[in-house]
């Protein structure tokens, strides 16, 4: 099945996300200076490095095992809120029943949903609270909607990336209610949330990584 995803496709999605974060990490740290401590880019860099390692040659053949390893490794970044949440996201993905050898758009949505469910055990933040959830939740909803509409994986990922970007951009006008930025309250308006921004970057990376993996052009 041409449209399916294998462990190796997933590895390339991760590679795409890593490239996307690497290109923008300075900007992410800069964003984190406005209402945080300026380290978000550095943490994300370490996180994607560990994600890549978890899928590198020599790692388990099994997607589930890779995701579990990835989650544990990202949790071990010692980078504060975002690495704990991102680690939980990947750990949670490993618990998805759909996490088999070759998966479709609907399975992919289920995997991401499992990750999100795990995160929700750790944070009460929801879209509107000016956190990474503002990008992540709509992205996964768009993924699910695309899958339900029978779209291909790449189409679904593009929808997700679009939703993530819109969600991240919308954080600019929100007031932070979670994380370090919370104490600043109203003063956080006008700055885009770094965590949401990196989620949007990761979804863009997932797309380009998957496209590369499938050798597809942008106009699928």
């Amino acid at each position, binding site marked *: 099945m041409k449209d399916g995803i294998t462990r190796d496709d997933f590895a390339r999605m991760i590679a795409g996300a890593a490239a996307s974060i690497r290109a923008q990490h300075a900007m992410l740290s800069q964003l984190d*200076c406005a209402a*945080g*401590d300026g380290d978000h880019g550095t943490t994300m860099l370490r996180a994607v490095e560990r994600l890549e390692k978890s899928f590198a040659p020599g790692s388990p053949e099994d997607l589930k095992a890779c995701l579990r390893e990835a989650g544990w490794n990202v949790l071990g970044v*010692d980078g504060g809120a975002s690495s704990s949440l991102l680690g*939980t996201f990947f750990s949670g993905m490993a618990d998805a029943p759909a996490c088999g050898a070759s998966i479709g758009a609907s399975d992919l949505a289920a995997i991401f949903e499992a990750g999100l469910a795990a995160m929700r055990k750790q944070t009460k933040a929801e879209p509107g609270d000016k956190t990474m959830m503002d990008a992540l939740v709509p992205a996964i909803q768009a993924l699910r909607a695309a899958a339900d509409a029978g779209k291909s994986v790449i189409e679904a990922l593009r929808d997700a990336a679009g939703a993530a970007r819109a969600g991240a951009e919308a954080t600019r006008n929100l007031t932070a209610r*979670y994380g370090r930025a919370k*104490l600043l309250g109203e003063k956080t308006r006008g700055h885009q949330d770094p965590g949401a921004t990196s989620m949007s970057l990761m979804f863009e990376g997932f797309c380009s990584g998957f496209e590369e993996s499938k050798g597809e052009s942008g106009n699928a």
Partner: protein
Amino acid sequence: MPMKKFINRPENIVPELLEGFALSHPKQIRLTGSNLVARATPKAKGKVGVVTLGGSGHEPGLSGFVGEGMLDISVAGEIFAAPGAPRCLEAIRLADYGAGVLFIVLNHAGDVLSANITMEMAKREGLNVKMALTHEDIAGGSNPEDRRGLVGFLPVYKVAGAAAEQGGSLDTCLEIAERMGRNMRTLAVAVQTATHPSTGQPIFELGDDEMEIGMGQHGEAGTGRMKLKTADETAEIVLEMLLKDLEVKPGEELLVIVNGAGATTLMELFILFRRVHQILKAKGIKLVRSQVGEFITTQEQAGFQLMIARMDAELIRLWDAPSNAPYFVVR
């Protein structure tokens, strides 16, 4: 302008500082496992272990308080960033001497997240661990969840650590930690920002004639900007807010801590403490114990934290108990 800090490569700051710390106090502490700061001589079997976690860059906090009578293990994260759950879990396993582990967590988003994930993993492993959260920063408002853990970690480590050392059960240690926590309040003041040691960026901006009351440890801007005031005026404002929040009544006994943020001198801390002492005396409140110094810093930030805590006889006894922690020796 280049950062004027004595460091090598920014990404090596934490391992290098931990190495230096351990080498400078070989009799009290050592590094073990994944760079965990542990007591040089582990506690006797059957006693409760006490573990904490927190970002680095706040030296001597938190690892400076590992030692007999205080912490068993401190899990130090990156600069200003909580360590992840895997190392915390490792620490809890190591600090379990058969009577369970008290996990003391300062209320900061990243630390709490990491601690919660750790607690879940620990429970899945069947470890006997209980968590005590400190949140005494009244700048957070009336909701306890919004109150961060500031220098109040010090009395909590001290009394819970002493209770553990004296053979108290896990429930006893938790009760002591929580009682100390409920009875303390802190407020922070900043007058000058620090630079982030990894990025060289100033952490926040403050006008040349401004100060800010309600400052966080990481310099996230607080809420109360005002023109610079004298030491006496500043002490009065901060102390009144604390006394009101803790509802202190004449005749009650307080522990007072004045913690320097980094560049503020001990000279200034003494001048501030002097005014605190005068005000309490005038109100008939008893200042029974005090500490003036740098316990948790934020690089070369200038400012201070003032903490007050209502003490009872048992808390005082535990506060006075011996400790050989490198930065909190009690004879």
